[in-house]
Structures are given as structure tokens and as C-alpha cells.
């Protein structure tokens, strides 16, 4: 069941991203594709202009991405490809990188939260609705167009939000608190949350890459 849902979910997500590329193509990306790819690759390096906090932020982000890839592969490979539960060395690798990922998420949450907070400019339609309901003129700047970072912001907050049940479901199962039935429920929660979490991370990464390519 989970195997089927996972395959469908991943297929739909990747399909949507391809569709998005087709419907709303990134013209900048295709103008100098090689240069863009090189540019994308250089993003993996730490720029000299960055402040120590900026360096930390980038290192943590890159480390989080690495951990995510490892966790996703070790977690989904046995379930999707082999059709069995995660076991053996894969569990050990999974459990080794999980706490590192959790720390990275916590640091990123602290460092990015302010940058990713929603502004009125992100939601012009919402702002208009609020104005109509409250009959108050906007206190903030009037947004002229839809913010391009809205998708990233939404996915960021979804990642932070989903991380909680994702981590807690597996950590709590390690304490002698829940019986077999609840253990199974916690495992299912971990499994399905991980699926949604992975999809959100993929979308988030896609949006980040798309934004960077357009710069």
C-alpha cells in the first residue's frame, strides 16, 4: 500500500515539476544553459563574500541537503524498490544521519525563519480581502506583483512543520511509552510524514534552483 502510494506521489510530483517547466518555462535557463549549470554548481561552494553567519547558514543547508538525500535513499529504497521494511545496514546509516539532519533543520529554522516570514506583499489578494473585511488601509507597502518567493516560503514552513511529527514519531517510539498498536501507528506516521516531507523538500529545492537559475 505504502509502496504504491509512494510511487504515485513521487511520479505526480516530478510530473508536476516537468509540467511547470513546460507551461512556465524559465527563459533565462535556456539562453545560456551551460553557463547556468556552472553557476548552479558554483552555488555548492562557499562564497568569499559571505559573513561567518552566512557561511554557517550555507554549510548547514548543504549538510541538510546531503543528509536528506541519504535519508531519502535509505528510507525509500527498501520500501519502494525492494518492497520491504528498512533493515540491516540501511537502518544504521538512516539512524546515523537522522540526528544530524534534525540539528540542521533546527539551525535552518532559526536562521531562515525571519527571511521566510510572510509579508503582505506575498499575498496581494489576501491583503485586498483583509482590507475589504476590516475597511482599513494597508499599513504596509502595497505590493504590485506576486512575490516570487512565496512557494519557497510555504515549503519552508511546511518543512519545519512536518519535521516535528517526522522526528517525534520515531523518537517517541524508542521510549517505553507506547504499546505495539501505538508503535505501529507511530511507524505509519513516520512513514507517511516522511513521504510528504520528502515531496515538500523536493518542491522546495526545485523552486530554489529555479529562482537561482533566473538570477
Amino acid at each position, binding site marked *: 500500500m505504502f509502496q504504491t502510494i509512494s510511487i504515485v506521489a513521487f511520479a505526480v510530483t516530478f510530473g508536476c515539476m516537468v509540467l511547470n517547466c513546460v507551461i512556465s518555462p524559465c527563459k533565462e535557463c535556456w539562453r545560456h544553459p551551460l553557463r547556468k549549470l556552472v553557476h548552479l554548481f558554483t552555488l555548492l561552494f562557499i562564497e568569499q563574500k559571505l559573513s561567518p553567519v552566512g557561511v554557517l547558514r550555507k554549510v548547514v543547508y548543504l549538510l541538510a541537503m546531503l543528509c536528506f538525500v541519504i535519508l531519502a535513499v535509505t528510507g525509500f529504497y527498501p520500501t519502494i524498490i525492494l518492497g520491504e*521494511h528498512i*533493515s*540491516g*545496514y540501511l*537502518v*544504521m546509516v538512516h*539512524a*546515523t544521519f*537522522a*540526528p544530524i539532519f*534534525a*540539528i540542521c*533543520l*533546527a539551525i535552518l*529554522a*532559526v536562521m531562515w*525563519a525571519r527571511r521566510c*516570514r*510572510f509579508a503582505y506583499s506575498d499575498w496581494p489578494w489576501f491583503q485586498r480581502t*483583509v482590507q475589504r473585511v*476590516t*475597511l*482599513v488601509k494597508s*499599513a504596509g507597502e502595497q505590493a504590485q506583483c506576486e512575490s516570487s518567493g512565496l512557494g519557497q516560503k510555504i515549503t519552508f*514552513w511546511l518543512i*519545519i*512543520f512536518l*519535521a*516535528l511529527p517526522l*522526528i*517525534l514519531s520515531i*523518537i517517541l*517510539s*524508542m*521510549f*517505553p*511509552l*507506547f*504499546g*505495539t498498536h501505538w*508503535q*505501529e501507528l507511530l*511507524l505509519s506516521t513516520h512513514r507517511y510524514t516522511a513521504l510528504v516531507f520528502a515531496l515538500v523538500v523536493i518542491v522546495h529545492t526545485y523552486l530554489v534552483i529555479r529562482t537561482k537559475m533566473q538570477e
Partner: protein
Amino acid sequence: MLLLCFSAATVCFANEAVGANADQKKLGDESDGSRAHPTHLIPLFYENDNGEKGEKITPDDELLLPFSTRWTCGECHSYGIIGKGWHFNATDPNVAPGRPGQPWILADARTGTQIPLSYRRWPGTFKPEQLGLTPRAFTKLFGRHTPGGGAGELETEDPDEIMRQFISGKLEINCLSCHNAHPGQNQGGMGGYAVQIARENFRWAAAGACEFASVSGSATDMPETYDPFMPEPVRDKIPPTISYREDAFDRENQVFFDILREVPAHRCYFCHSNLYLDKKHAEKWSSDEDVHLKAGLTCVDCHRNGIDHKIIRGYESEDTVLRNPLVATSSCEGCHLGDKYSSSPVAGRLGAPVPEHPGIPPVHFEKLTCTACHSGPWPSQKTHLTKTSRAHRLGTLNVNKSHDVLPHIISPVFAKQPNGKITPHKLLWPAFWGSLKGQDVTPIALEIVRQTAGKVIAKEKLPLSGNWPALTAEHITEVLTLLSSQKSIKGEPVYISGGKLYSLDDSAKLCEEEHQSAKPYLWPIGHNVRPAAQSLGVRYCTDCHATDAPFFFGDVTVDSPIVAAREAKKMIEFQGISPSYAWAFAFSFVFRPFMKFICLGSCAVLAGVLLLYALKLLACVAKALTERD
């Protein structure tokens, strides 16, 4: 022609009559529903020299014969149906063997032999006839810890044994072994059941063991011309003779049997006792019984059967080999967790608590049986030598109480079962002389071994403890050379011991190799079940997942008469798991508390950030609403 037709018709009708008789239920085959104990005040019958029902026994009989359970108990209970029960059907090749169980073990220190035997098709066991044991010889050796029937009732095919079987009679099913509630039932004491069987007094064994009769004399001592139905004095020997207690018979020459339908646990214990030779708990008083017994249950509360005596053994998947309506709900899971396919709730039968297993990841229930954590002795760094009633004659006369006495049964060994689950086992390293043909090793008949190996090993001092003599490679070489000269042995003589096969190469030099036939025989441990508070994992995961935890890394003794071959294997070698993986996984538990701490800390930060910005959002909403006012 007419005569022939008439004869055929007669046979036909006779067969129908027999069939009808077999199908007909007797008085005691079916309960009327009363849970009260029926009173068994009944006449005694003996079996005559033709194997048919004899006369009613009275104390005034000129020749007192032992009562026959077939004809006495069989008056009201279908002996033929009972005879197909699990305790009596081992010799029936059509019976599904089920999960491997405890074998009979033929142990002989003088020939370096310790071999698992069974009439059932349990992989790793050998048929008694492969060692030259006839059913009669088998019964004489092991009948002491059987309730009769089975091999004891087989007609001998050996011409030399026909007269001896006539003298000793057959070992009928001894209903009283299990169902007699009277404390005078004497299974292993002086003149009891075991003694009668050792004396080949098979016909007298059941009667001799009960509280109102005693048997003297020995069928072994009788000449082949002796007729127990027309006995004549034998010089200097006492023929088997029975005497009934005077007050056993009432005015109508009936006898009262104190029969219990529900067999008391101490009756089961006669054949099913275990003694784990742990330094702390080697005495009965210092070790606890099974928690179920202490909770007030008896063995037969779970191991149930009907008149067919097809008793529930109580393991998972037993329902594939046993048609018993209660089999699915009588295993550990069946009672404690219930049958998920049942239309009505069945968990908690007999007051069984439904376990919560808090903090135990569900994968444990896929990889382990219930007994892995709950049964047998708590695992220690080294396995224990273990004694069992059947292997070590426990409860009978003149038992060697030394801890080292053969056979050497080793437990608990946590090994993988064919169904892929790890479960605690008892283990026996087979040691025997055999002949190798292709890849198959067949044991050499014990008589031949005694004449060859016996002579060589006789030069060595046998320990009084009953332990192995200290053999060397030279002994093995010498015996193998002697066996090679035996023309009756077909194939290459080999010695199996300690998991290895020893043979002579072309230059008559001893060489050893791992071999399928040398693999140990293991059978699962069901009891004693420990209380939940003493189950594995109750303290922490490191009960098993530690780099030195006995569950994975305990030493399993490799037992062998060859001193140089006595070593140890790691438990994990029996589990089909990579040792390096198990070690690495166990080592990871050192960091488990840190992982929990880090993850919970990260969650706290994430929750803090979420809460902070949720409050900010609330503040925005509040501000907007305030500006409206």
C-alpha cells in the same frame, strides 16, 4: 466356486462389522457435559495368550495376571483412537512430524557416541533401526519415559525376538502414567514402571506401577521356552509375577482407579522435566517453575486434547498439521493476543494478560518468537549443560547426578528456525561412527562399534562423572583404521563429532572437515516461561543489543569427546546474521541516548520557532482587528 463366493461375502461382512465397531463411540469417548470427575470403579481384564480380551481378574484367580489397559480401560474408551494420539504415534510414518522436538538420545561414553534418535521424520535425527535398535530394544532403553504404546506395541519382525516378545508381552498404552491421581502411582521408583521396563516386564509394567499392585521377577531372566500363561518354576530365577493388594477389590471384584481427566502437572513432569545446570540454580528449590503453573494453570490447560489424544504442542503454525479446533488459540500468541481471524474475541483466554510491549519496535515480533524473550533460562555468557528427564533418566533409580554426565545437551541457544524467527533452543552435538557414501553419513550399528571403537576407547579411563573419555586424534585414527577393515561396513568409515567429520585420507592420516551430517540437532525451548518482568529487553535494549550481549555474542559450547576439538562458537553463527553487522548495530546503541537527546532538542527548537511565528501571526491579526476598532 459357490464356497469361494460365500467366503468372500463373509469376509466382506466381517470387515463391515469391524469398521462399524471402530466408528462406534464408547461410553467414555464423549463427555455428557458434566465437569465432575467420573468415578472409575471397574473390573480388571487381562490379555490372553492370543492377544485377545481375557477373563475378569479376581483375587482368587489361580494364576494372577496383570490387567491390560487395552481391555480394562478399553471397555469404555476407544483404545485404537487413543493409540493415534501424539504420545503414541511416533512410529506411524503417515503422521506429520511437525516442529522438531526433543529426540531420544543414545549416549555411550565407551564408544564416543551421542546420537539423536526418533521415529519421527525430524531432520537431523536418525531412525533407531539405523543403529541396529529394534523397536523392542528401543522400548527397553527408552520406554521408561513413555506412556507406553508406539514402538512398545509393534510386532517384532526379528525371528530371534518373537519368543522374547511372547514372554515380555507388549508395552500397552499406560493410561495411568498420566491420568492416575493417586500418589502411589510409581513411575520411577523401586519396582515402578521404569524398573519393569528395564526388566522387560512390558506386560506387567502398567499394573506394576499402579498403587494397588506390585510385580516381582524379570522377563529378561526367563528362558525362551517360558510361558507366562502356564508358568513353570525357573531355577534360581524369579519369573514376572503380580500381586494385587488385598483390599483393592470390592465385593464385585471391581477396583477403584483414582482417574483425572485433567492430567496433573507432576505427571507431565516425569517425562518433561528440565534441569539447567547453572551454578546458581542447579537445585530444584533454587529455580522457579513456569509462570503459568504458578498462576494456577496446569500443563493441559494449554496442551489440550480430546479422546483422540492429539495433544496441542502449542507452537505457531501448528494448525497446518493438527486438526484441533483450539490449536490456533492455544499457542502463546493465540492465548495472549487472540486469533485475528476469529469471529469472536479469544484473546485473554484463561485470564492471559494481553501484553502491551511498550517501547518494543514491532519488527521484533517478525524476527523473534515469544519464547525468545520469555522462555528458558536467562542467557549468560556461556551456555549451560542441561538435563532432561528423557535424556538423563531423571526421576528413576540410580541416576548419575553428576553435572557432566552424558548426553551433553546445551542451552539456551538462540537460533533461527525454518520460519525465519529466532527462538531459544536446546542443542546436541551428534557424535557417532558412521559410513560415508556420497555426501550421506549412515551410523554404523552400535554392536559393530562396540567391538571396534569400544576396544580402543576401553584403554582410556572412563570418568566416574559419566563424561566423555579424553580422546585424541590417535584414538580416532586407530578406530577408523579398525573399522576400515570391517567388511560389513559399506562406504568410508568416518567419525562425526563436535560439528566435524573425521576421516582417513589415502595416506591413513586423519583429516577433518565441516559436514552437513555433523551439524548440531536443535529443538526449541517452550518452557519455563519467565514472568514479563524477567523477559529479555525489560531493562533496556542492551539486554540483547550490546557488543557483549549473550543473545548474539554468547559462547555456545562445542561438545566433543576429542579434547582438542572442544571449543566454542558464537551464538550469532546459529542466527544467519552477519556478526559484523550485529556488532555494529549493537555498538550503535551506545549513541542511542545522545540521538534521542539531539532529536528531542531539535524538536524543541523547531517547535519554538513555529510557536514564535505563530504568535507573530496572531499578533498581526490582533493588530489588524485593533486598527479596525
